[in-house]
């Protein structure tokens, strides 16, 4: 809460460019949280998460363009469509494990991207589809507050879900699906449910993002985008609650800071992922916890302040 109050003042001190970077960071925070629910907590390593951001964005922009609905209605429709598609994709993947699920979801993501590219008479494909600005301006400040609020809601909803009975089912499915089913967990129902929920996270973020950027193209539906989400969650800490939040902001800011490097950044991120996966499976969050514990051991007076937050798995 305190941190959020501080964050609310940011646009006053930062340039528009920096504010824009933060808006994009917050957009990725929502995507990363949604994917962590699916991949981190439930163990469904889907590679179609970025696609649902595209589904949200295109659904809304197309409805606004052709049916002239208000933008918020378009975004809500995008969430509904994504939920249905997420449920459908989850159903398709019910009996798939690990690499097969990853491949199937990847195939789904590529098909949808190609469909949007090819159907250019409707979607304008690579020409780009104009999406009207939500706040009638491309300036980032109002969108910053919007995404700050959205990220807050995403965090609260995810926290609620993870701490609920459903959160226990999700972890049980991830740890051992067969054991979960013979202990009474309806694994099909809950896997589909998490697929749908994470799709809604992505679609809402994507929908608002579309009406902020103002122009949609199939490019962000390429696999690169998914790779970035995976990098964010793993660097931040897969299976930790704060991981995707920390990772999304860290990677997005780093990515902007190193913009001059171009695509070489991906090499750096890949190395970062390898180092983290090898040495610090709980990512930056895990490193911070370890550092906190060490500091608390050295300076006992600090212990209550540094009390590590709930370990989420």
């Amino acid at each position, binding site marked *: 809460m305190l941190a959020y109050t501080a964050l609310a003042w940011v646009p006053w001190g930062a340039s528009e460019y920096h504010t824009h970077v933060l808006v994009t960071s917050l957009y990725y925070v929502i995507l990363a949280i949604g994917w962590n629910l699916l991949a981190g907590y439930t163990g469904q390593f889907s590679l179609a998460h970025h696609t649902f951001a595209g589904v949200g964005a295109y659904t809304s922009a197309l409805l606004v363009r052709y049916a002239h609905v208000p933008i918020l209605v378009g975004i809500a429709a995008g969430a509904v469509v994504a939920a249905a598609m997420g449920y459908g994709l989850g159903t398709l993947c019910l009996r798939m494990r690990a690499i097969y699920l990853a491949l199937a979801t990847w195939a789904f993501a590529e098909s949808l991207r190609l469909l949007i590219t090819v159907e250019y008479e409707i979607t304008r494909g690579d020409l780009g589809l104009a999406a009207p600005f939500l706040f009638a301006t491309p300036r980032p400040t109002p969108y910053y507050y919007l995404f700050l609020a959205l990220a807050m809601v995403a965090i609260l909803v995810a926290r609620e879900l993870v701490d609920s009975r459903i959160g226990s089912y999700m972890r049980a499915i991830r740890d051992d699906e067969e*054991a979960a089913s013979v202990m009474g967990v309806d694994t099909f129902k809950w896997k589909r449910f998490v697929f749908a929920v994470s799709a809604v996270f992505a679609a809402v973020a994507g929908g608002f993002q579309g009406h902020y950027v103002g122009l949609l193209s199939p490019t962000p539906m390429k696999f690169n985008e998914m790779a970035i989400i995976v990098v964010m969650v793993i660097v931040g800490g897969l299976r930790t609650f704060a991981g995707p939040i920390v990772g999304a902001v860290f990677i997005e800011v780093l990515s902007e800071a190193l913009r001059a490097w171009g695509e070489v950044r991906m090499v750096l991120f890949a190395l970062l992922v390898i180092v983290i996966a090898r040495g610090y499976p709980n990512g930056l969050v895990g490193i911070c916890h370890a550092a906190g514990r060490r500091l608390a051991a050295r300076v006992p007076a600090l212990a209550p302040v540094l009390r590590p937050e709930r370990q989420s798995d």
Partner: protein
Amino acid sequence: MTIADRAGPKQIANGWLLETKSLTKRFGGLVAVDDLPLAVRPGEVRGLIGPNGSGKTTTLNLLSGLYRADAGEIRLSGERIDRLRPHEITARGVARTFQTPKLFGSMTVLENVLLPALTELGRGGHRPMGEIRDRARRLLELVTLDVHRHAPAKELSGGQSMLLQIARGLMVHPIRLFLMDEPFAGVHPTIKDTIMETILRMNRTEGVTFLIVSHEMATLRRLCRRVSVMHEGKLIAEGSFEEVANHAVVLEAYLGR
């Protein structure tokens, strides 16, 4: 030491808690379970023996809903359960353990045993949480894991993992039929004793019915009055140990005579 078969809380028309008819499961050309008739009375502790590959584990997988039968039927207290999914069978009071313990590794020991109760509440169960926690603690004490209740399950030894599987299964409520797959294989003798004591205790005090797949004849002899013998997917004999041991087909299957 054997225990008398006792009638469970639910008496049904034909007296069987579990009954399979012509149960069949094929994997490609292999008939893993072949026309199996198995019938277990309420309150019984039944052994299921047979050489490796005789279809014992496949039978448990069919009974718990992990596999779908190609033919035949499974009835629990007269109700057909062979088309139900695993969690629906669990909801009817059937629990099981696996030969290689399948735990929720990232959860604590206590969270593992509480999971069946969570699903029970999710189905609309009305047991108060206090009662559930009480039972969880008592079961963990029974299997000597109470001191480890806050440890992550992945840190347990093989034998302890088996004990935890058993405690977790007993949390299914109301537990009527407990299917165990090789609970004694490769565990330390003290743990073996704990498992036997747990089985006997739950059978006596709560009338839980057990179907135990095992190779440990001496142990089964102390637990069960009757055993069923499978060979190449078929039920080849059933009865007391003495009856079964003198059965010509069993001798041939087991000893090659």
